[in-house]
C-alpha cells in the first residue's frame, strides 16, 4: 500500500468556545483529488485553513509525508509548508502584473523564465502576462491563481470554493482543466465546496461535513449510492425518505415492498431516488399521478401517496397521464437507516 501524502488525525479547531472543526480524521493519497463537501458554516474552510497553517488547530495531528505540520508541540509556519492555496476571491496581488504574480513565490531566480513560460502556456495566459490584474476577467484571475500556486511546485494544493465566483459553464470547464493539470503534474489537492455537483466532478474521494464533523468518507459513487445516514443522502441529488418496516431483505412501505441494501428488522427510513424507481399503470393502486414535468431527456412525475408525494423519473416517451393510477417498484436495493 502506498503511503499517504497527508494524514489528518483527530483534528479540532475552536474559536473561543465554538467548535468549528470537531475531531476529524482522513488521509490523502499522492496524486489524489479530494473534496470536502458541506453546507456553509460546517467547518470545511476552517479545516482547510488549518491544514494550510492559516488557522491554529486546538488539537490533533497534521502529517505531511515525514514532516509534521502540526501536533501538540509543532506548528509549522504556513510559508514553510510548501502547500498551495487557492482562495475563493483568488487573492491576486493588485499591485503586481500577472507575470509578477505568477513568479511571486519563486525563490530560484534562474528558473524564473522557464517556469513562467511553462505555466503561462499550461494555463493559456500567454497574452496576458504583462497585464495588471484589474485588466483581466475573473476566470483568468483564477488561472493566474493556479499558475502562481503551481510555480512553487507544491505537492498539495488546497482550494477554498475556487469556482463559486464564476458562472456555471466556465466553472465546469475550468474545473475539468484544473483536474487534468493536477493529474498530469501529480499534484494532490483538497477542494472545499458546498456544491455536490462540483465535488462529484472533481474528486476521486470525498468527505461530507456537517457541524464540524465528517459524516462519511468515500468515492462519489459510494456516497451517492450507499449513504450511511439521511443527512449524507440529503446532500446528493433528489433525496426522498419514506418510513417503512424492515423484514430482512425487504421493507413494507405504503408504496409496497422495497428491497433493502442490507438486511434489517423493525422500523426504518428508506432512501428513494427518482431514477431508482419504475412506474406501471395499475387500476387497483391507491397511488395517483398528480403532476408531470417534461425535462427533455426524461419526465419527472409527481405521485401522490396516502401521506406524501414522491418524484419518479420516467422515459420522455412514457404515456402516463395526470390522474392515472400507478404502481411504484424499486429497481435496485435502497439504502436504509
Amino acid at each position, binding site marked *: 500500500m502506498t503511503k499517504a501524502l497527508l494524514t489528518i488525525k483527530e483534528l479540532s479547531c475552536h474559536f473561543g468556545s465554538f467548535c468549528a472543526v470537531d475531531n476529524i480524521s482522513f488521509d490523502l493519497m499522492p496524486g489524489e483529488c479530494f473534496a470536502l463537501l458541506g453546507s456553509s458554516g460546517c467547518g470545511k474552510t476552517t479545516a482547510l485553513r488549518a491544514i*494550510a*497553517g*492559516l488557522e491554529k488547530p486546538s488539537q490533533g495531528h497534521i502529517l505531511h509525508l515525514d514532516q509534521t505540520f502540526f501536533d501538540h508541540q509543532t506548528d509549522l*509556519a*504556513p*510559508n*514553510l*509548508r*510548501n*502547500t*498551495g*492555496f487557492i*482562495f475563493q*476571491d483568488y*487573492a491576486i*496581488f*493588485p*499591485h503586481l502584473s500577472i507575470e509578477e504574480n505568477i513568479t*511571486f*513565490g519563486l*525563490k530560484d531566480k534562474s528558473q524564473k523564465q522557464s517556469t513562467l513560460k511553462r505555466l503561462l502556456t499550461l494555463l493559456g495566459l500567454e497574452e496576458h502576462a504583462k497585464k495588471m490584474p484589474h485588466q483581466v476577467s475573473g476566470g483568468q484571475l483564477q488561472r493566474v491563481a493556479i499558475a*502562481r*500556486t503551481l*510555480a*512553487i511546485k507544491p505537492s498539495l494544493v488546497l482550494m477554498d470554493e475556487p469556482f463559486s465566483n464564476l458562472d456555471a459553464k466556465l466553472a465546469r470547464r475550468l474545473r475539468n482543466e484544473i483536474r487534468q493539470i493536477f493529474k498530469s503534474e501529480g499534484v494532490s489537492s483538497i477542494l472545499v465546496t458546498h456544491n455536490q455537483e462540483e465535488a462529484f466532478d472533481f474528486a476521486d474521494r470525498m468527505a461530507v461535513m456537517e457541524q464540524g464533523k465528517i459524516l462519511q468518507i468515500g468515492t462519489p459513487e459510494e456516497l451517492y449510492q450507499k449513504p450511511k445516514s439521511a443527512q449524507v443522502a440529503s446532500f446528493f441529488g433528489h433525496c426522498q425518505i419514506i418510513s417503512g418496516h424492515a423484514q430482512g431483505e425487504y421493507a413494507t412501505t405504503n408504496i409496497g415492498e422495497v428491497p433493502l441494501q442490507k438486511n434489517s428488522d423493525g422500523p426504518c427510513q428508506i432512501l428513494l431516488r427518482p431514477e431508482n424507481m419504475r412506474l406501471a399503470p395499475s387500476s387497483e393502486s391507491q397511488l395517483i399521478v398528480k403532476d408531470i414535468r417534461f425535462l427533455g431527456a426524461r419526465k419527472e412525475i409527481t405521485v401522490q401517496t396516502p401521506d406524501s408525494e414522491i418524484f419518479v423519473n420516467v422515459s420522455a416517451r412514457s404515456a402516463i397521464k395526470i390522474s392515472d393510477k400507478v404502481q411504484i417498484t424499486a429497481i435496485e436495493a435502497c439504502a436504509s437507516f
Partner: protein
Amino acid sequence: MLLPLYVSVKDVLDSKNELNLLFATRDLWPTIGRSLLLASLTAIGGALIAVPQAWFLARYHIPGKKIILILCILPLVFPSYISAYSYLAAFDHMGFYQNLTGMAFPIPIRNGLFGTWMSMTLVNSPLIFLMTYAALQRQSPSQEESARLLGFNPTQVFFKISLPALKIPIASGMLLVALYTLSDFGTPAILRYKTMTYYIFRHLDRGSFDKASFFSLLLIIIAFIFLQLESWINRSQGRITDNKARQIIKKAKPSKLLLIIIFYSSTIFMACLLPLLTILYWFSKGRNSELVFPKNLFDSSFNSATLAFLAAIISILFAVPCAWCALRKKGLFATFADRISFLGNMFPGLVIGLAFISFFVSFKLFGYSFYQTLWLPVLGCAIRFLPQAVSSVKTSLAQINPRLEEASLMLGHDSVSTKLRITAPLLRPGLLAGFALVFISTLKELPITLLLAQPGKFYLTQNIWNLIDEAEYSLVAAPALLLLGISSISLYFILNQKLTKSND
C-alpha cells in the same frame, strides 16, 4: 493621549481654594452659557445652510455640480482664525465693506455673538454637508418612489420619508459642529466673544493655570458628552442602505433652478469667495504702501514646515500600529485604537497645549527636560492629529484583503517579507494621505504652536496671530493666502477618503 485629562483633573484638584474664588466670580455661568449658546446656534445655522446644499446637489441637475461640491466643502479646510480674520477685515470698522460702500456694516462684527456665530457657521457647515450628502448618496430612491405610489405628494414625501431618513447624519453632523465650535479658540479670540476657550487663553496669559485647567476640564467633559451622544445617535437606529443605489436626479423648473443657484451663490460667496476677496483686497492695498510681506515670513514658514514634517512622521509611526490593531486585532487595545478619533475630538488644541505646559514644566526623562524644546509642539500636534492619520491608514488598510497576505505566506514568503512586498505597497496611499493631512493640519494649528513654541522661534501661525492682533490687515494677507492655498490641498485627501468610504 490621556495626558490632558490627567493634567486637568490634577490641576483642578490641586487648587481647590482658587477655584472657590472662580466659582464666586460672576462671569462663570454666563461664560458657559455663551459657549453653549454659540455652539447650538452654530449647529442650527450650519444645518440650515448645509442640508439644502446637500439635498439640491444630490437630487437635482445643477450646472457645475463638481465645482459646487468642492466649494461647499472647501471652507472646512480653511483655518478658522483666518476666516474669522477675513470677516473682521471685511465688515469691521474701516474694513473692505466700508471702504467699498462708504457705509459701516449694520451689525457690529466684533464684541458680540453675531460675528463669531456667522464665522463659525460658515466654516463648520461643511461637516454637516459632508455627512448629509454621503447619506443621500447611499439612500435608495425606491423608498421615495413607493411613497409616491402610495399616494403622497412630493412635499409630503420629503417630510415623511426623505428628511426622517437624514435625521441621523444631520444630528451627528450638528453635534460635531457644536463640538468644534466649543473647542475652537481662534475665532472667538479674534472676534472677541467671551467663551470658555477665550478665558482659557486669557487665564493662561496671566499665568493662572488652575483657572485655565478648570475650564479645560469643563471643555473635556462637555466634549465627552457630545461625542457620547453622537455615537449613541449613530448606533440607535439600524440603517438599510443600498451601496449601489440608483440615483434619481431631477430636472428643476427654471424658476426653482434660479432660486437654487441664488442659494448656492450666496452661501458659497459668504463662505469661500468673500474671505478670499477680502484677503486679496488687503493684499493689493498693502502693495501700494509696499508693506506686503512680514519680515520673518520665510523663517516662520520654514519653522512651521519643519514642525509639520516631524509631527506628520511621528503621527504616522503611531498610526500604523493603531490602525492595524483596530482592524485586525481584538481586545482592549484594539477597542482603544478604534475609538481614537473619539479621544482626539475630546481634546482640542488648547487643552493639549495647556496640559503639555503644565506637565512638561517639571517632567524630566533621564534628566532631560522637554520643556521649551521643539519636541513639545511636535508631540502636541502629532497627538492632536493622530486621529486623522489613523483614519487615513485605516481607510487604506481596510481595502487590503487579508487573503492577500495569506496568499503570500502560502507562496513561501515569511511574514516580514509579506509585509514589505504586499502590505506596504498597498498601504502607501493611506500613509501618504495621512502624512499630508497631519502635515497640513499642523501648519494651520494655532493654539498648540502659540502655547508650546520655544522662546525665540516663530511659526507661521504665530506670525498671523500677532499681525491680526495688531490689526495689520494687509500684512496678514500674504501668510494667510499661503496657508489657505496649502490648506486647500488637504481637501483632495478628505474628498478621496470620503468617497472611498461611501463606496465600501
